[in-house]
């Protein structure tokens, strides 16, 4: 499959279907790939695609005030299912023109979450991560251990409904349109069973860990504001220090800002240095949006975003009348 991917990218660059293609290459640390920018056919040599290609590369389309899109007439990007949804989101939200992006879909079997790998390695330094079948073998300092793959797969991947791109220009292999994941919202369902006090306690505990490094925001493909509300001074929306209430507000507002826009790529979870459970609220909001508006972000380029439309038949149970 990798060879086919390399050949495809090579051809795309040769035929000038894209001026630049973004993919992954092996990172310096085991288990974590790093972005690769390919401008010439020979650049594909370093290209990889495996369980370590965690990063959602599409955010390069919008980061830095869309610099990449401005410098190149047509940008190619290799995408997993979640990444492809980000491109759709960008097209819906006027951030890219669909025709200016060449989407290369790859068959995704899920990505390893580095925090889970670290936990599996009992905190010891990891030298290599190898997978065969459903077994992952981790070698490290004073360590050689095999664990079932599920233990190290990212939650976003375990419960992923759309592992393959639905919107693409070329797909390597046979794309799955949708896979049935009955447990998709299992964490949310558990969370909802708690009392309001328990939920609040949980959220407070999680969000109070925040050191306000904004890594979650910076990697988030759906966060592309020129100036994030937390950085604005005029008006100052929230306090800028890691004071607990301000941190809670930061995360709650982020939850709302990506309501109907989160593609559950898991980038924020990976990026968070203090291991906040960032996924629970995002997933909760995703569930609400799906139940209320029948909308899932990034599936249909012609569908209007849930938070930008209003239909009379929508649930209005929050209104007392």
């Amino acid at each position: 499959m990798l060879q086919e991917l390399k050949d495809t990218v090579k051809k795309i660059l040769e035929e000038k279907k894209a001026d630049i293609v973004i993919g992954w290459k092996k990172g310096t640390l085991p288990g974590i790939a790093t972005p690769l920018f390919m401008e010439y056919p020979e650049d594909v040599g370093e290209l990889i695609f495996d369980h370590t290609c965690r990063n959602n590369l599409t955010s390069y389309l919008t980061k830095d005030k869309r610099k990449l899109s401005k410098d190149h007439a047509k940008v190619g990007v290799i995408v997993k299912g979640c990444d492809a949804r980000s491109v759709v989101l960008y097209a819906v939200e006027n951030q890219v023109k669909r025709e200016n992006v060449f989407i290369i879909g790859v068959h995704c079997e899920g990505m390893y979450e580095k925090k889970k790998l670290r936990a599996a390695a009992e905190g010891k330094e990891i030298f290599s991560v190898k997978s065969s079948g459903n077994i992952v073998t981790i070698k490290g300092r004073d360590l050689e251990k095999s664990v079932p793959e599920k233990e190290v797969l990212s939650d976003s991947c375990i419960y992923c409904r759309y592992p393959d791109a639905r919107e693409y220009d070329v797909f390597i292999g046979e794309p799955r349109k949708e896979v049935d994941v009955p447990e998709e919202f299992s964490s949310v369902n558990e969370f909802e069973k708690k009392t309001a006090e328990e939920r609040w306690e949980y959220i407070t505990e999680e969000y109070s860990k925040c050191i306000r490094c904004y890594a979650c925001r910076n990697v988030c493909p759906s966060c592309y504001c020129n100036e994030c509300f937390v950085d604005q001074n005029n008006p100052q929306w929230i306090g800028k220090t890691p004071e607990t209430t301000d941190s809670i507000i930061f995360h709650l507002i982020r939850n709302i800002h990506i309501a109907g826009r989160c593609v559950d790529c898991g980038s924020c979870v990976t990026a968070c240095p203090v291991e906040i459970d960032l996924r629970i609220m995002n997933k909760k909001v995703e569930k609400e949006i799906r139940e209320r508006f029948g909308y899932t972000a990034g599936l249909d380029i012609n569908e209007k975003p849930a938070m930008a439309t209003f239909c009379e038949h929508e649930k209005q149970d929050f209104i007392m009348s």
Partner: protein
Amino acid sequence: MSNWEPKILALLCNWCSYAGADLAGVSRMQYPPNVRVVRIPCSGRVDPLFIVKTLQSGYDGLFVSG
């Protein structure tokens, strides 16, 4: 704590609820004086951040009506 009274901020739409609050006064309907009203041009004006912001400011409850 027995004397504790909640402080509530109300964001009222100028065209309906704010008018309703006026009407309550005109009709001399009596209600607890715990609520502080901010007039807004439409309940659509209410940014989700207003909600957390007012709670952070110390209000115990927020009433958005429109």
